[in-house]
């Protein structure tokens, strides 16, 4: 009879205590080996209990008082994960570390082997000899890209949904009674126009997580959390994620029982600048850069801030102050908003919704921000301010339309030049027609591609092609500039509307509505780190270990 069989559970007698049961079993044990085995099992049980107690004691301070942060970053594939996203993730880690906030990071494919981010070859680097060939076949942007593995330290995992979801769920469960900050810095999309919550996160491996699904996940794990769940989403259509704060993911303005609030770089319906980044300075001018700079108390490059974000001078920059800082300074196509603003816009009753904005703004933070931004952009603050803004908008739109027409015409010319030159080249080198064939492979392996590229560069049409590409690149930048100008005007108009809305809420809002709004404001006005009991390094270790478990 094996030791395992000898340790069969004794029959349970109704009303008999555990000690009596064990005693009766020991009494029945006939050999010494059984007693030794029993002693071993008891020792093992004791060890397990001790280990559990030790783990509980070690993690206890984090579980009761430490707020935590989660960073989910990177695109759905290496080609959508620029190096800048990795640098931003590092910056966020640094900011949160300084604030003493333990962070769990999920980035692209985690620590899997293989390239997951791309970087651009510096403009100073000599042009590749194959560049003429790349230009001819429209691969000039990709030609300057190189891929590598991310270098972020201490990753809890990748962002592929099937891997991320259980880990994130565990984290939500573990922190259900603690404040939690979620930062998402990646790509986003939307799958329909019916509900704002149709917006989704584009996660690694081309997987997605919709706002409504995230809402369900949080509702399941933190349904009545006493501490707030805060978020920052910087992707396209990120405004849809404000629905996390509501009771129903799709409709209504009733807030969820647990407090949730946050900030998004865009509305639920528009693409943020990161999705259509045509400028290298995107990461420098985006909403998230200014938001993070306010929290870091210095610019991304380490220089001193041009404006003090701590408006109430309490020594702590709240997330809302960071939001206002970014609203005022960011010049990008990001049309950022906070949950309280989203709520305010949804709250507006039907009898006020279609009235024009009052020409006399109430004296609140939105009106002050509007005046400050108007002064910054040289907008005269007179009775005609609305009309002046519309005139500006109209001018910018006309300029944008003209630039787009010019770009389209230039693209047609470029395509014509390309086709002529491609025809010439493929007549000489048939294998160029099909780059995924053995013939092409032979061509490439024989170093003939460099000769072909040199031949292309000597053609008179090539100079024209290069000129078209240069002009197109400049036009794209000009278009981006106009789009940013248009967003700036929309931002001013929206600030006026928000100022008016806030005044309307004070006048027309029911007490429970005002309470809901005040709850969101309280949540947004919290500082980055809300107060904690254990050192950052220790807590981060615990947090990373728990997430991995």
């Amino acid at each position, binding site marked *: 009879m094996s030791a395992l069989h000898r340790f069969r559970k004794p029959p349970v007698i109704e009303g008999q205590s555990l000690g009596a049961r064990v005693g009766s079993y020991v009494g029945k044990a006939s050999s010494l080996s059984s007693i030794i085995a029993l002693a071993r099992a008891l020792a093992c049980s004791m060890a397990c209990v001790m280990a559990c107690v030790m783990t509980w004691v070690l993690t206890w301070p984090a579980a009761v008082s430490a707020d935590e942060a989660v960073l989910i970053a990177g695109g759905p594939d290496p080609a959508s994960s620029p190096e800048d996203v990795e640098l931003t993730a590092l910056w966020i880690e640094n900011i949160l570390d300084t604030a003493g906030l333990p962070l769990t990071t999920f980035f692209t494919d985690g620590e899997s082997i293989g390239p997951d981010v791309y970087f651009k070859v510096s403009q100073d680097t000599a042009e590749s000899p194959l560049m003429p060939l790349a230009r001819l076949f429209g691969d000039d942007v990709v030609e300057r890209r190189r891929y590598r593995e991310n270098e972020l330290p201490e990753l809890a995992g990748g962002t592929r949904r099937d891997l991320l979801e259980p880990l994130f769920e565990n984290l939500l469960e573990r922190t259900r009674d603690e404040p939690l900050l979620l930062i998402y810095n990646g790509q986003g999309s939307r799958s329909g126009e019916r509900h704002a919550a149709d917006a989704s996160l584009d996660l690694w491996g081309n997987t997605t997580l919709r706002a409504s699904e995230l809402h369900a996940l949080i509702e399941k794990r933190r349904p009545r959390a006493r501490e707030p769940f805060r978020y920052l989403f910087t992707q396209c259509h990120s405004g849809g994620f404000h629905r996390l704060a509501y009771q129903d993911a799709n409709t209504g303005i009733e807030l969820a029982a647990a407090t949730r609030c946050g900030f998004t770089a865009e509305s639920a*319906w528009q693409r943020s600048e990161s999705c259509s980044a045509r400028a290298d300075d995107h990461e420098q001018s985006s909403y998230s850069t200014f938001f993070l700079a306010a929290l870091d108390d210095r610019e991304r490059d380490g220089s001193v801030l041009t404006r003090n974000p701590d408006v109430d001078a309490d020594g702590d920059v709240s997330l809302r102050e960071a939001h206002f800082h970014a609203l005022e300074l960011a010049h990008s196509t990001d*049309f950022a908003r906070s949950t309280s603003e989203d709520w305010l816009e949804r709250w507006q009753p039907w009898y*006020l919704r279609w*009235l*024009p904005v*009052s020409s006399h703004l109430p004296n609140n933070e939105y009106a002050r921000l509007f005046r400050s931004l108007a002064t910054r952009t040289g907008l005269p603050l007179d009775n*005609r301010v*609305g009309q002046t803004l519309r005139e500006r908008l109209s001018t910018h739109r006309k300029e944008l339309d003209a630039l787009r027409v010019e770009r389209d015409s230039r693209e047609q010319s470029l395509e014509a030049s390309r086709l002529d030159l491609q025809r010439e080249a493929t007549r000489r080198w048939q294998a160029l027609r099909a780059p995924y064939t053995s013939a092409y492979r032979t061509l490439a392996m024989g170093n003939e591609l460099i000769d072909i590229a040199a031949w292309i560069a000597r053609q008179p049409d090539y100079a024209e092609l290069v000129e078209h590409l240069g002009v197109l690149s400049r036009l794209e930048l000009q278009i981006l500039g106009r789009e940013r100008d248009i967003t700036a005007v929309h931002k001013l*108009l929206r600030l006026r509307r928000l100022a008016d809305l806030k005044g309307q809420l004070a006048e027309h809002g029911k007490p429970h509505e005002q309470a809901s709004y005040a709850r969101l404001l309280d949540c947004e006005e919290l500082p980055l780190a809300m107060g904690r009991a254990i050192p950052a390094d220790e807590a981060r270790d615990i947090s990373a270990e728990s997430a991995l478990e």
Partner: protein
Amino acid sequence: MQKKTARLLYIAFLWLIVAAAAWPAFVLAGTLLALYTGEARQIDAWALEPRTLLLADFLDGWRNSALVSALLGVVAIVDYILLSRYRVTWLVGGILLPLAGSVIAFTLYRDPVSALPTLVVAGLLLAFPYRLVERVRHSFGEA
């Protein structure tokens, strides 16, 4: 008897037209004034949000304003009964609608000044279908 029935039918028709057009008139007035002042939220929403949302807002307003619209229809009937009897008063027929607009602004809004222009213009706009119905009635002979 026939004349009385025709008159009742006309009153019912007038009520229906004014009540149905009250909300669209309010939205149109708000939009026109907002365009004039440059603060047209609806124009921005048209460009930046799905149009179905704007339409949903409009329909929501139409549903919620049903009671006020019905009362405006009653005002139109009172206006017709009081002012259509004499030619001089008939000329200013529909005047009670913008007046009703201002009454609504002062009674239902906590900040009447912000809503007054829109409601008065809405009343004036509403007087158009009222007068149109009157014109039709006249062309078919007085009810």
